[in-house]
């Protein structure tokens, strides 16, 4: 045992600081007991009780600081004392935490009078409550969360409609409001085209194509995937169309969705009829006649929707690079494939991108299976096993249950890709890579080793493995579109310039000896 006693004459520390210092001093390595205190009778009493009294301590007065350090070994005493000294001189360098923090929407809305919007992405079990609080506070809402009941969705949207607020979602992944991309969105030019969309990646694709064709976006309003169901009745889409109609900056409106339920479609078409601005309608696999009859502009593909919109918006057609399909390339690839390499395997992160490629395939091919097929006969029996032509949406609940979206965490798609690449009946694997806010920082890079490995394996086995990659993004996005595309091309992947072209390329390559576009 070794003790060091130091009395600092005429040195004052307040009692609370001393308590805190003593507590810290007792945690110093090697210290058996440390007492730091002013030389009051009470403190001297404590020292006496623990048997550490010395003549110097006895002499200390209430104006003197006493430091007593006891260590097990003599060689530790000096270093322990120095550590105590350091505590005494150590000025607080903690970072100022002056930022005001809020725990609830109520308090945040109260504390930030300029707040006008809430983005909510908490677990669905809690999301409704938060969304309601936001609406009660006159905040527009983007509800990213899924697993919200239809009843709750109707209640929230009705409440928002009555208050004249946006209620985007549940399950709304994409919006651009006042040129700010929210959740999954791309950096696009400001312009005069407004989008209302029930499908996230579909609207991302249209906005990116508009940008590529030289156009720009005013607002991109997401509605959530269920908005055009019978139960919800298109509340958000109808309000969105009205708002864009009233918006001075918007000249053209684009609607993106899967085909609405019949009664809702009627309402939407009636709204289009009433609308003072041209409306381009891209209902994937939808009915052209009804749209045209309502005075809308029908688009069969996302690319067509964007092209029609920019032309209506006043962009000169002569200056647009329409990114025509590379027909010689199709012939070239066809020649490389053996007769048994017949099938397309589409592995998608974006639901609408999957849908679009699938619908394009279904126009000319039979036996197109998917985990998101409407026709139950063509739903995959086992989502982990492909059948003939198979299109998989990895963003569907089947795959995301308890896991992050594949746009953030691509691991399950990588595994599946390697599995498909080994299948000798596969002619083409088509994949999307989504850039932009919210997405993975290097979606192509993360897939690259698997693609190279698969290509090498196929080469060893004497077959050609055709991979088509589409990168959804703009030249303003991070990571850079150009770099991502280059990585694909360098790895021997065929680059498609749009979601539409990706679907067409895949289909045409496997359509051997038949007519092609």
């Amino acid at each position, binding site marked *: 045992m070794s003790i060091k006693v130091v009395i600092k004459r005429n040195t004052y520390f307040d009692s*609370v*600081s*001393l*308590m*805190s210092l*003593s*507590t810290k001093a007792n945690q110093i390595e090697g210290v058996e007991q*440390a*007492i730091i205190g002013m030389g009051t009778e009470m403190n001297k009493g*404590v*020292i006496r009780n*623990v048997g550490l009294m010395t003549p110097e301590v006895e002499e200390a007065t209430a104006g003197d600081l006493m430091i007593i350090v006891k260590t097990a070994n003599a060689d530790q005493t000096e270093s322990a004392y120095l550590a105590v000294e350091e505590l005494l001189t150590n000025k607080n360098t*903690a970072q*100022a*935490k*002056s930022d*005001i*923090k*809020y*725990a*609830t929407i109520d*308090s*945040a*809305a109260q504390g*930030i009078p*300029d*707040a*006008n*919007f*809430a*983005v*909510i992405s*908490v*677990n669905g*079990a*809690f999301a409704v*409550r*938060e969304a309601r609080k936001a609406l009660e506070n*006159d905040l*527009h809402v983007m509800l*990213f*969360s899924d697993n919200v009941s239809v009843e709750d969705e109707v209640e929230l949207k009705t409440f928002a409609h009555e*208050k*004249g*607020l*946006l209620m985007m979602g549940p399950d709304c992944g994409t919006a651009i*409001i*006042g*040129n*700010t*991309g*929210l*959740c999954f969105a791309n*950096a696009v030019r400001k312009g005069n085209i407004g989008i209302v969309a029930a499908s996230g990646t579909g609207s991302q694709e249209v906005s990116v194509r508009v940008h590529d064709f030289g156009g720009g976006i*005013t607002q991109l309003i997401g509605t959530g995937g269920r908005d055009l169901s019978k139960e919800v009745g298109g509340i958000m889409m109808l309000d969105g169309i009205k*708002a864009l109609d*009233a*918006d001075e900056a918007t000249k053209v409106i684009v609607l993106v969705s899967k085909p609405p339920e019949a009664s809702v479609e009627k309402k939407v078409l009636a709204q289009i009829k009433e609308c003072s601005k041209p409306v381009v309608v891209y209902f994937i696999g939808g009915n052209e006649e009804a749209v045209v009859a309502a005075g809308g502009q029908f688009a069969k593909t996302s690319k067509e929707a964007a092209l029609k919109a920019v032309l209506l918006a006043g962009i000169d057609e002569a200056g647009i690079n329409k990114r025509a399909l590379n027909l010689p390339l199709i012939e070239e690839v066809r020649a490389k494939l053996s007769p048994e390499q017949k099938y397309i395997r589409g592995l998608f992160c974006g639901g609408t991108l999957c849908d679009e490629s699938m619908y394009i395939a279904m126009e000319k091919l039979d036996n197109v299976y998917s985990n998101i097929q409407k026709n139950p006969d063509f739903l995959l029996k086992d989502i982990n096993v492909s059948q003939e032509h198979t299109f998989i949406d990895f963003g569907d609940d089947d795959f995301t249950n308890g896991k992050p979206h594949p746009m953030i965490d691509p691991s399950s798609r990588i595994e599946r890709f390697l599995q498909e690449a080994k299948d000798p009946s596969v002619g083409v694997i088509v994949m999307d890579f989504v850039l932009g*806010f*919210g997405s993975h920082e290097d979606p192509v890079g993360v897939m690259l080793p698997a693609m190279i490995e698969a290509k090498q394996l196929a080469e060893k086995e004497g077959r050609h493995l055709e991979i088509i990659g589409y990168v959804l993004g703009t030249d303003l996005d991070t990571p850079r579109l150009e770099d991502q595309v280059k990585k694909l091309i360098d790895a021997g992947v065929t680059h498609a310039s749009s979601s539409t072209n990706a679907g067409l390329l895949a289909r045409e390559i496997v359509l051997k000896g038949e007519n092609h576009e």
Partner: protein
Amino acid sequence: MSKINELFTSKVNVINVGIELFKDDILAQNATATHLEWSPPGGGKPEIIAALNKIDKAELAEKIEAANRLAVEKIVNSQPVLIGFDQAINVVPGMTKKTILHAGPPITWENMNGPMQGAVMGALVFEGLAKDLEEAAKVAASGEITFSPCHEHNAVGSMAGVTSASMFVHIVENKTYGNRAFTNLSEQMAKVLRMGANDDSVIDRLVWMRDVLGPILRDAMKLNKDGIDLRLMLAQALHMGDECHNRNNAGTSLFIQALTPYILETDYPVEQKRAVFDFVASSEYFSGPTWMACCKCALDAGHGIEHSTVVTTMARNGVEFGVRISGMAGNTWFTGPAQQVIGPMFAGYKPEDSGLDIGDSAITETYGIGGFAMATAPAIVALVGGTVDEAIGYSRQMKEITTTENQNITIPLLNFMGIATGIDIRKVIQTGILPIINTAIAHKEAGIGMIGAGITHPPMEAFEKALITISEKWA
């Protein structure tokens, strides 16, 4: 223009709830976003969320809002004034010679912890109900003694809170609403009854307080016809660096300054007056109980308003932490286990020496001072982790769980923000933020006394029980 079209022409200013990455992306686009420190309401427990949703229904929610507004209005408008001192038997409602009041929610003799039992035994000897401590233990267990919470007698008690018939108490009257509150006198800092000590030195001091200090204070205040406006003095003390729970340096100076002229005018011998001043000077804690009675007086005025979810009492008996809410009139206690107090300790003591949270002093936090007003007391920030920023953070954070700010009592450092007032159990449960309490750490064994100070929180369980009860009763 519709609200949606207004949004189109303005910049988004987003409140982000959930995935933080979304906030970062918004900020990267030069728009404004604030990320909420969100946690699932009720800790994500389905039965708690169901209860929250039940009382959130518009009609009931409106009733609750209105009731809470009224409750905090009464708390804020209360003007507690010290009008005198007297022996408990003469003034405290329901006091009898064989009644012992204690801190916290109800508890039986057998279940009391060491310090509280120690204090009870000391009080029985002091009152002459037992000749020594041994007999006192028997008397206490005999069933002859009525044990009752201070809070059920318009009173509060520091630490063990043990208050017996002949002890002198503060008499605080609410000039706005007429109700009165009581609390005994500080024994200052040494071996004291409130910490469970009960040897001769403790009893001797209690006798002196009964025979000298008490009568002098009583007679002094008889000469002060206006009384002492405690709310005004409390507000001053906060501006002088107290939070009036663990730091009372300014408050005690102000208080004795107000009492001194009247003490001087009394007819007691100079040496007795001198002894009173020496006693007051021996510890800054002297006014600690005074502020407790002040807070109690205001909070009692806000108690018993139907449908109010405002907390009017937080108190601990060393075993359980009890909460009362305004909407449950009378003495409905919602309890959970008393917690450990975490903080720096006097030299020579370790965390395992500390007893569990005890005392009625959390009435100060219930009112909005103490831990809630840490930002006024930078000198003692060591208690709450060590930095002034942390102290400020606590004072701000408490606004998340309260109903209003009390503009009568302000925090200069926060641009004279009023203290956070009217803890709402709904907000506590929704945010998962528990009230912060600044308090002393008593040794777990009777008689040793205070060994440190720090912070603690009520158990969430007490708030959950209250929520479940009202959701069943009111919805």
